[in-house]
């Protein structure tokens, strides 16, 4: 709509005209409105001035826009202004304006030239077509111009230190007279960068090309977009991303919602990533979302996306393999469904101290989850290992309901035994996952176990019945007993608690009761000399930190009963060496060399370990007047006592001695 009035100022008609004022009522377009436009020519050398009383672009409005034109012309086909200067609200903008305007056709052309050489040109055909071009406009310049419209985006651009240049073209108007409006916006952002103050969101040397178009409908717009990230890198905490992804999307903008009908993202490591979504226009709040990922390569997605998000501290130690597909749905901004499909997937966590660690895979199967329905997950795990313990193939079937996972009975092969889990349940709480299960370890041979962990080979079996295994706050409590039948006797382990089993500060607590251990087999296994007989051991309050003992109260004593009791010369020497210097009465030393074996009545040794010190005692009531304590009380012929004098022994030193005796097989020195 255009109103036009000519106002000629001055005195009587006969006098020369000293002022000419052209009033143009207004100019309206769906994208903008201009009102109270006045063009004034004054005599006396002052440049012609264009004043726009009110300008509205979108939701923004300005008053008092003044354009002064040093070179202006007023001809039949319109007004023209060259090298004009622009003031908005009294402030001069650093740009030069050229414009031509035909008041009859309302054809308007405005060219803005910035000091950098960048330019913007705006053409309005007087009807409904609007054409804007940006040529090498920097983000700074754009921010300056944007700040005229809205301080918000301009402030955000400055806060993020945004830089770069844009070449773009926006065309708005119906392709044919009477047609619906079509907007097309295409261009390229180059040499771009940004950085938040803390550097956690930043991009450098970015280049992005885009091509978007929208067609007006009766209720809004239909739109489509293609954007290609061509150059540069970005860190969007905690992810580091590089150029390559290409986004293609289409949807609608309605009165209340923005809909993304389909969007697909092409990127490395993913065969296809597609999504659809709807957002509420007020505040861009997510309403519905559906994402599907097809054939994601875990070797790429794992280190790039999964590890930084789920376990940043373990990024260096986690390895992924295989493929994963996934689906996710959200309604009213809340997660309603998640679907994961694994194909030959594998994950491994290297040990904290460079050891073998933990691994599972290949894993194949399907894990669906719905917020409001029960689902069934099925996985086939082909194998795995925890340190030296290798696991065989097993199946996992579980019912998933909300924050609860109930597993069907599971049989996990461990070496040559089977770990059977019954009633395994995991529940998600505010403070993390909690779980419980009944665990039975069906006999596992000591031979396989000792081979696996690199101990001297032992005969016997390990079995366990742990009906009340609970997991909470990273701690595993095992009610029940682990039974190891070994050396003709057995070890009964109760009160097991394990925390942080895979960390640097792993902890284990237990009470161990060993009965009727054949010392012959034991000493033979560990090349400790030879002791014939049986012993019982009580190990109360055992605490292992990083699988090494830090605290216990141990008591070893000969088993009751009638059996042959002999000890070899070498075993005597070794026991003496463990007790430190002066473990034998001088008189007996001569005797030692004369016989291969000796009779004994009993053996007894206790050690209370705390703070790195082992407080030792010998046989009950075996104290001697000279302060020594008997470890071996001789009996029969020939007989000799082994006596300890050093009650407080440094645990590390003791371990060192045991290790030397066992591993190096050296003959300890006797004093």
């Amino acid at each position, binding site marked *: 709509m255009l109103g036009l009035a000519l106002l000629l100022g001055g005195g009587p008609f006969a006098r020369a005209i000293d002022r000419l004022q052209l009033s143009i009522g207004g100019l309206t377009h769906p994208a903008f409105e201009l009102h109270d436009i006045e063009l004034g020519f004054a005599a006396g050398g002052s440049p012609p001035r264009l004043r726009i009383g009110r300008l509205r672009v979108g939701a923004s409005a300005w008053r008092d826009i003044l354009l002064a034109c040093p070179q202006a012309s007023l001809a039949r086909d319109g007004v023209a202004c060259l090298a004009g200067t622009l003031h908005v609200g009294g402030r001069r903008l650093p740009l030069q304006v050229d414009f031509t305007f035909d008041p009859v056709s309302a054809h308007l052309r405005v060219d803005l030239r910035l000091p950098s050489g960048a330019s913007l040109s705006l053409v309005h055909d007087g009807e409904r077509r609007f054409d804007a071009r940006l040529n090498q406009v920097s983000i700074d310049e754009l921010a300056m111009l944007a700040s005229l419209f809205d301080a918000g985006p301009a402030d955000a651009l400055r806060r993020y230190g945004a830089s770069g240049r844009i070449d773009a073209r926006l065309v708005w108007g119906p392709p044919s007279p009477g047609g619906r409006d079509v907007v097309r916006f295409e261009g390229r952002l180059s040499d771009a960068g940004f*950085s938040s*103050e*803390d*550097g*956690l969101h*930043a*991009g*450098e040397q970015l280049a992005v090309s885009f091509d978007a178009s929208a067609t007006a409908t009766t209720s809004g717009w239909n739109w489509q977009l293609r954007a290609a990230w061509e150059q540069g*890198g*970005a*860190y969007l*905490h*905690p*992810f*580091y991303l590089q150029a390559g992804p290409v986004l293609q999307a289409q949807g609608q903008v309605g009165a209340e919602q923005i809909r993304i009908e389909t969007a697909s993202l092409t990127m490395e490591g993913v065969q296809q990533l597609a999504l659809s979504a709807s957002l509420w226009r007020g505040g861009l709040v997510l309403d519905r979302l559906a994402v599907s990922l097809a054939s994601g390569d875990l070797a790429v997605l794992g280190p790039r996306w999964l590890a*930084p998000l789920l376990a*940043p*501290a*373990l*990024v*260096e130690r986690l390895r992924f393999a295989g493929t994963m597909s996934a689906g996710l749905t959200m309604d009213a901004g809340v997660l309603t469904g998640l679907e994961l499909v694994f194909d030959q997937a594998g994950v491994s966590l290297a040990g*904290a*101290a460079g050891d073998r660690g933990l691994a599972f895979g290949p894993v194949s199967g399907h894990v669906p989850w719905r917020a409001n329905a029960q689902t069934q997950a099925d996985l086939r795990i082909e194998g795995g290992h925890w340190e030296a313990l290798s696991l065989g193939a097993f199946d996992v079937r579980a019912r998933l309901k909300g924050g609860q996972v109930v597993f069907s009975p599971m049989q996990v092969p461990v070496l040559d035994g089977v770990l059977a889990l019954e009633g395994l349940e995991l529940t998600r709480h505010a403070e993390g996952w909690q779980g419980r299960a009944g665990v039975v370890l069906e006999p596992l041979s000591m031979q396989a176990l000792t081979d696996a962990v690199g101990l001297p080979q032992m005969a016997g079996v390990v079995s366990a019945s742990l009906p009340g295994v609970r997991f909470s706050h990273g701690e595993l409590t095992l009610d029940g007993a682990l039974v190891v039948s070994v050396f003709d006797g057995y070890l009964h382990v109760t009160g097991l608690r394990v925390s*942080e089993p895979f*960390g*640097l*500060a*792993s*902890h284990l607590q237990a009470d161990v009761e060993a009965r009727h251990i054949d010392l012959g087999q034991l000493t033979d296994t560990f090349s400790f000399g030879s002791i014939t007989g049986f012993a019982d051991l009580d190990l109360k309050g055992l605490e292992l*930190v*990083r699988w*090494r003992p*830090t605290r216990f109260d141990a008591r070893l004593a000969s088993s009751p009963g009638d059996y042959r009791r002999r000890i070899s010369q070498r075993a005597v020497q070794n026991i003496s060496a463990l007790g430190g210097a002066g473990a034998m009465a001088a008189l007996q030393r001569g005797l030692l060399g004369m016989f291969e074996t000796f009779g004994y009545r009993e053996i007894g040794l206790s050690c209370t370990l705390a*703070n*790195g010190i082992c407080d030792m005692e010998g046989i009950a009531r075996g104290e001697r007047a000279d302060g020594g304590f008997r470890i071996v009380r001789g009996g029969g012929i020939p007989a000799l006592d082994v006596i300890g004098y050093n009650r407080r022994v440094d645990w590390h030193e003791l371990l060192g001695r045991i290790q030397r005796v066992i591993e190096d097989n050296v003959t300890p020195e006797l004093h």
Partner: protein
Amino acid sequence: MKALTRITRWLSGLLVGGVLAFAAHAQGNLEIDTPAIAALKASMQQRHAQLAPMYASGAVGLAVDGTVALRDASVVPLAQRSGLNALVAAENADRAALYREIARANQRPEWEADVRRTFAQRWIDRAQAGWWVQRGGAWVKK
């Protein structure tokens, strides 16, 4: 250059060790020589060689809660920021385990928060000039 690196590493080791020893002393008769504490100390000392330049550049600061925090990642090249985040996360995991472990080694798990507070203060007190530390909720350069 090599010698300088070695000296820096040695000084860093001394610093970590010094803070560990001092903090333990300040808490009373804290027994800090469990295998876990030794392993955590070794792990932290090894990492310190990588973290020290990050403290010096201001990329990482010593937070008031006994952790280390990404303060200004922009001083690190873009491609290395993921690695820096992993480094900080791993250090904080070790620190949390250390505080828990010291309390536990004393048979007083409830001391964990006190141990953490004491350590936080010691790390900050012992920070080198030029490092960034958190005081009264704000980052300040020592």
